[in-house]
């Protein structure tokens, strides 16, 4: 599903990854772990074509990551960054934003499904009526995760989804994500509980090489 071979990633003059190869199989729940600055977020960004890499190849669902296939690859992904800034809008609008794109409009869920989904993540349904400025970063991120999963994309990429959560919320999130049998999930995280509960751990401390 995600195949990375001999990747070299240099960023701001610093080699973050060298001869880096991994494979994440279909439906696997994988965690990218490692200390800060080891390139966890950069790796997700490379997979999504946001950052250029210098050497190696990346294949997503058999398609090589290049300018020709990038649109097709992004149509297969759902992505939640660590921090989401959506000014001047309601949480409900924020939830529905990805469903406004032509690619996703057929997946638009009804209110009941949304409420059910966010309650599994430990969120109250009245949160949807609030403004995005009124909720915490962790709540915003869980709303974005629920939204991303309802897009029904085969690949879900999550950047530090546990960073703003307490241990109880983390457990709920892990249970929720592990229940997504038909999706391949690749997430960055420092969290021990998640690392222990994932199918695969990609530890960048073992790969990373400073130039």
């Amino acid at each position, binding site marked *: 599903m995600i195949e990375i071979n001999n990747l070299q990633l240099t960023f701001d003059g610093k080699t973050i990854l060298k001869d880096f190869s991994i494979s994440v199989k279909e439906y696997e729940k994988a965690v990218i772990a490692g200390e800060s600055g080891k390139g966890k977020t950069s790796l997700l960004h490379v997979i999504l074509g946001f950052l250029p890499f210098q050497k190696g190849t990346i294949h997503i669902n058999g398609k090589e990551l290049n300018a020709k296939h990038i649109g097709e690859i992004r149509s297969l992904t759902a992505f939640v960054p660590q921090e989401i800034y959506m000014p001047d809008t309601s949480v409900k609008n924020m939830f529905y934003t990805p469903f406004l*794109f*032509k690619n*996703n409009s057929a997946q638009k869920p009804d209110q009941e499904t949304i409420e059910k989904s966010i309650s599994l993540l430990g969120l109250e349904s009245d949160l949807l009526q609030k403004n995005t400025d009124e909720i915490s970063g962790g709540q915003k991120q869980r709303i974005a995760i629920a939204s991303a999963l309802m*897009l029904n994309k085969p690949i879900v990429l999550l950047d530090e989804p546990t960073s703003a959560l307490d241990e109880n919320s983390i457990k709920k999130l892990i249970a929720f994500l592990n229940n997504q049998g038909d999706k391949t999930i690749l997430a960055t995280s420092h969290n021990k509980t998640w690392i222990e509960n994932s199918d695969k751990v990609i530890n960048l401390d073992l790969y990373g090489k400073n130039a």
Partner: protein
Amino acid sequence: MEKTLDINYLNLFLGYLLILIPILIFYYYKTGLVKDSLIAVARMTIQLFIVGLYLELLFEYNKAWINSLWWIIMVIIAAFTIIRRAYLSLRIFIIPLIISLIISLVVIDAYFLGVIIRLDYFFDARYFIPISGILLGNCLRTNVLGLNSFYLKLKTDKIRYRYYLGNGATRTEALAPFMREALKTSFNPLIASITVIGLISLPGMMTGQILGGSSPEVAIKYQIMLMLAIFASTLISVVLTILLANRFAFDDFGNLKDNVIKEKRQV
């Protein structure tokens, strides 16, 4: 038509004494604006005298090619000024800006001068030069605000742009919210000024026409047409510049190139 009273040079010199008021206040509050103010007034004087001389020539000859040449020079100067003031890349924006300014001015000039005023001689300097100049001045201001807002937001808020792309948005879909915000930023001041026009200030062209001997009724009609023309031409130029420049401002993966805008200062 009654001719406007001339200001003799001695009286013009007396007029310059007005600058003493801001200079003394700036000096008293140690604003550091004294030198800038004096330079600005000196530049204004020199520029306007040079333009005055040139306009005398334009009005005397009133030839289509000379007037068009002046028009093109104004467009090029405006394009360079927009790029400098919006902190944009000259290489990426100069051609899109010149093209979009030309298109917006040609369309609106043609409609204003050809369809509304129905000039017998389209390139008549008396109409062609000042109306194009006012349109261009407004395009300049609005483009600086709009382009700066669009590209600076994309650069500083790239997480949001990436969030859209990473969830299957096309580049056009991912850029749409940024276009919306840029249009709001750049057109709010213009809409506000249209809303209060005549109530808190008499617009420049209308004042000029009344001083020049036109009746207030004629001046009002011109002013209304001018505001509508400004609205349309500025909108065409901002949207067109962004659409054209976007062909060069992004890499093959839809990422904004690093050199598109200098982040150092905001407008």
